[in-house]
């Protein structure tokens, strides 16, 4: 396929792999914070093409993995209200809440529908005026502008039965929180689609203050290998900086229109991250002037403060401080078909990946 095939060329990948073997001397650890990157690295088997001194670590950038139990519990409580349709991206439905998951509730007969775009939820609201349609908003700066656009459209159309439960998050605060907690990495492979929206400035502090390399990368194997090469060059020459590898999509200033949509609809809030707790100003909350579309304002449900599953060390794994093999639940009570913790939930989670490759 055009514009994809070019970035999967074996010769190019092998050439970068050779170059890495030649120039990479130091032991370095790089963290990819995006679920899409983790997925691509494993799908194309890129780890097998890197020299042994380069270690890749998966960070908390899978929006599904970091959705809090509280969020899932709230969505489940909404699904039990009469006349409600819950709409969600597919991979969220398997995520465990305190006692159930959306998948189990769907099997119990509650109206939970998988959609591919928030616009489908809008359409559902238009077509079912007697129902109340709630969209579960998850994802980072990449998916949040689409949710914002849907809310603005709903306001324009005066739709009174469309709501959003927002667990949208922003990327930089969690990256900074990890660094401040003392995680040992030399650089970040930063998510290309976040920067397509935000631009590059969000990472300046990481480079200048924390002295970490940041390369904004695309999602094809050549993109990732090139980003790793750029980070290795930075590490070898001791000059950490913010660089863009994903030039065909990312511009320094980002997408101004999407930024305006985000700013119009959302404001920052302290937010819950599964396994990491509450991180200041890391989530997006619907502004008061759009509060009629805010599910949390419209529906009253009682949700207990969730207790972290006993023995689960996902928080430490997400911080790169422990590996799944250190966890007493791993591959015993916690498996991909019956996950306990965040890292086992999505196929891209660290525990799920370890599970797949366990010997």
């Amino acid at each position, binding site marked *: 396929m055009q514009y994809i095939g070019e970035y999967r060329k074996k010769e190019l990948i092998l050439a970068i792999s050779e170059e890495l073997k030649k120039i990479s001397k130091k032991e370095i650890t790089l963290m990819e914070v995006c679920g899409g990157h983790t997925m691509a690295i494993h799908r194309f088997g*890129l780890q097998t093409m890197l020299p042994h001194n380069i270690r890749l670590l998966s960070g908390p950038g899978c929006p599904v993995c970091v959705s809090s139990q509280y969020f899932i519990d709230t969505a489940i409580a909404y699904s039990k209200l009469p006349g409600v349709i819950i709409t969600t991206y597919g991979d969220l439905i398997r995520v465990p809440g305190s006692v159930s998951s959306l998948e189990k509730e769907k099997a119990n007969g509650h109206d939970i529908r998988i959609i591919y775009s928030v616009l489908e939820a809008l359409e559902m609201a238009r077509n079912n005026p007697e129902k109340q349609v709630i969209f579960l908003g998850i994802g980072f700066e990449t998916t949040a502008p689409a949710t914002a656009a849907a809310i603005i459209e709903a306001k324009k159309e005066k739709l009174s039965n469309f709501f959003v439960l927002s667990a949208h998050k922003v990327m930089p605060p969690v990256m900074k929180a990890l660094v401040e907690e003392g995680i040992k990495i030399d650089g970040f492979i930063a998510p290309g689609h976040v920067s397509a929206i935000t631009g590059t400035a969000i990472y300046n502090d990481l480079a200048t203050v924390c002295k970490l390399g940041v390369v904004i990368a695309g999602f094809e194997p050549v993109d990732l290998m090139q980003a790793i090469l750029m980070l290795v060059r930075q590490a070898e020459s001791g000059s950490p900086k913010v660089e863009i590898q994903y030039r065909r999509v990312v511009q320094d200033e980002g997408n101004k229109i999407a930024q305006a949509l985000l700013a119009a609809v959302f404001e920052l809030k302290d937010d819950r991250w599964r396994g990491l707790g509450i991180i200041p100003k890391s989530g997006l909350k619907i502004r008061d002037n759009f509060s009629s579309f805010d599910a949390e304002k419209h529906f009253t449900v009682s949700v207990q403060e969730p207790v972290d599953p006993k023995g689960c060390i996902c928080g430490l794994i997400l911080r790169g401080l422990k590996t799944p093999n250190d966890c007493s639940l791993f591959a015993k009570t916690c498996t991909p078909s019956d996950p306990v913790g965040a890292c086992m939930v999505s*196929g891209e989670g660290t525990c799920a990946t370890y599970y*797949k490759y366990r010997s």
Partner: protein
Amino acid sequence: MKELELIVRSLAEEAVKAQVIVVTGDTKVVNKGKCDKLFINTAGIGSVRKENRLVSKARNIQPGDLIIINGTIGDHGLAVMSARESFNFKTPVVSDCASLNHLIRQMLDQSSRVKFMRDPTRGGVATVLNELAGKTGLGIEIDESALPVTRGVTAMCELLGFDPLHIANEGKVLIVADPVEGDHILEIMKKNNLGKQSAIIGRITGDHPGKVMLKTETGGRRIIDSLTGDLLPRIC
């Protein structure tokens, strides 16, 4: 009633094609609202020839044996999914539903080196291969660049984050064959309309016992697991 006529007609056409006799049938009528559409159950009876009785057993499989499939993978699952879900894009993907009895007969008649056959339906090729690896205790190596996949299926998988190896097929048979007759079997298959795009997609190996390894198009390697739960479109 129109729908019923259409279905019965295509039933008859397929029975003629497959040279299968429909011997009996029955209908049940239930209360309105208790069954929203038409449901058809069928049961088929056939016989396995003595000399082929091992083809479902996965015995006698050895390192070096070839893995062959009779055409493109993933078409059926994605065709059903795009009909069922409200995707906002149109796809040219059509189901590969077909009766494979003639193709299989031709292979078994002309070669005695077919060691195993299985239909990679729900769970796709990946699930059958994992069962096979588990059963034989041998490893399997699949070559991604040899996998027949249509452009439509590739594009849909890119969009939804699926792996064609996990998607259901209806008109496909996965074969393990002795390498001595690999090319011969492939030739027989390609002569049949339902095997035109047949390909050798991998081989049995003594390495990594019990595991299915994919040699990726880009030169890397990764383990292919069985499908767990349903296929879900992914956010990233």
